[in-house]
């Protein structure tokens, strides 16, 4: 287990991918990299895809299921609009694992870092700095620059609680919604 020390505030996804790629290269050979699709600035799998592109390896985004690991490669099922695709990749390969299946699933995504700490309580975590990975200034090429945040006007929903047992209230709700009464 190892971690990278860098101020994450100003890093963009490409810079993060480059730091992680440098650390992976330093560790040597590998077959399979797993990354989550949810990253600090969005749920879009960008980190995994850019990490794979930086390392020059094959990748699949939005993976819902690892179907098979055999024959020097991996078969993964990815969620796409209105269905699925099964993709076969040779090693080394990267899979970005999505949460599409969790959209109506009561299981909340677990905090991976906390889980690892529990499981590997006694194992020391090696830490590398950007300089040790051969990157002088991880922020050097960050672009586009964050220009700020704007609040989004929140839609104010006037919410009425309707008693499920109250037939009149249910009827009144239907009339309001369907006939605009």
């Amino acid at each position, binding site marked *: 287990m190892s971690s990278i020390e860098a101020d994450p505030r100003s890093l963009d996804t*490409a810079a993060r991918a480059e730091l992680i790629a440098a650390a992976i290269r330093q560790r040597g050979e590998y077959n399979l990299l797993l990354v989550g699709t949810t990253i600090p600035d969005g749920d*879009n799998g960008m980190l995994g895809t850019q990490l794979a592109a930086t390392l020059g390896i094959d990748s699949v985004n939005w993976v819902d299921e690892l179907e098979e690991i055999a024959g020097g490669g991996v078969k993964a099922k990815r*969620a796409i609009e209105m*269905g699925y695709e*099964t993709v076969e990749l040779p090693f080394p390969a990267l899979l970005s694992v999505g949460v599409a299946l969790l959209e*109506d699933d009561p299981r909340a995504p677990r905090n991976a870092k906390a889980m690892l700490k529990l499981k590997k309580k006694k194992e020391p975590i090696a830490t590398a700095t950007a300089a040790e990975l051969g990157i002088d200034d991880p922020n050097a090429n960050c672009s*586009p620059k964050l220009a700020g945040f704007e609040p989004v006007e929140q839609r104010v929903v006037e919410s009425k609680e309707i008693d*499920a047992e109250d037939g009149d209230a249910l009827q009144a709700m239907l009339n309001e919604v369907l006939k605009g009464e």
Partner: protein
Amino acid sequence: MSNVIVYAEIDDGLINDISLQAIAVARGLAADQGGQVVCLAAGSGIAETAAGLFSYGADAVHTVEDAALEGYVAKSYAAAISDWIASQDAPLVLFPASTLGGDLAAAVATRLGAPCALDCDSIESEGGTTKVKRDEFDRKVMTCFEAASGSPLIVSLRDGIAEVPVADESRSGAVESIAVELDDSVKAAKVLARNVAKKTVNLKDARIIVAGGAGIGTAENFALVKELADKLGAEIGATRAVVDAGWVPADHQIGQTGATVRPEVYIGIGISGAVQHRVGMCDAEKIIAINTDANAPIFHVAHYKIVGDFKDVVPKLIEMIG
């Protein structure tokens, strides 16, 4: 003169809707800069479909075709189109923020060392600076990015960025094929199987949608959802969990990997309302939610909260509608 490049995603012989919306956006941006809208498509056997891009507003259409591009794989597609994009010297390249379009945008950006902003909800260009914005954190904050011109800015645009342009059949042109030699190292990965539902329902134009979630429990119970929808003349919607369970086909799915809908009335039954579903339906004019869990997140966006068992409530509603 600055051209705007639009990557048009073609699946199963159809140009995807967000790509068409991106062409509309590109027309506005290119007009401001006295440039043209140049469309790019990649795949196998796509030339005929790609020719249709002219009617939606493309001034030029280029394609990369190779048998190895039959199914989408990030590395092979990025290898196929990146060099050509770099050769165009265009300041802006737009991709659709579909699951695969956004993925390709990120991979191309890394290959080109270009700045990249995914999932944008607005884009404007002024005096050499491009500003993009996207809704984040459960639509509470709009994050704004700026990129100065230099290397091409790669952007993916979300569904709803513009109206799909009306096809103008009088516009036409010749598709130009880009010759690319893909080496064997990018041909190793393959799409083995594709299982995508044909679109049979039109959720986007539905006036009323009755949608069910995992809380419905079984396929048999889902019949109640269908019965209520029938009574109301409504379309049937569903969450991904319901589609995965096989209770309804995938074209009924609403949310992040499904349709984004804005009906007059949306009735959500047994849907907890995780953000992946909410993003697809929270702009409905009137939302009724029925759930046993009073703390279900769907109640945050519902105009009418009914805390109760749908097996009791839905039959009552069906009877009242008559």
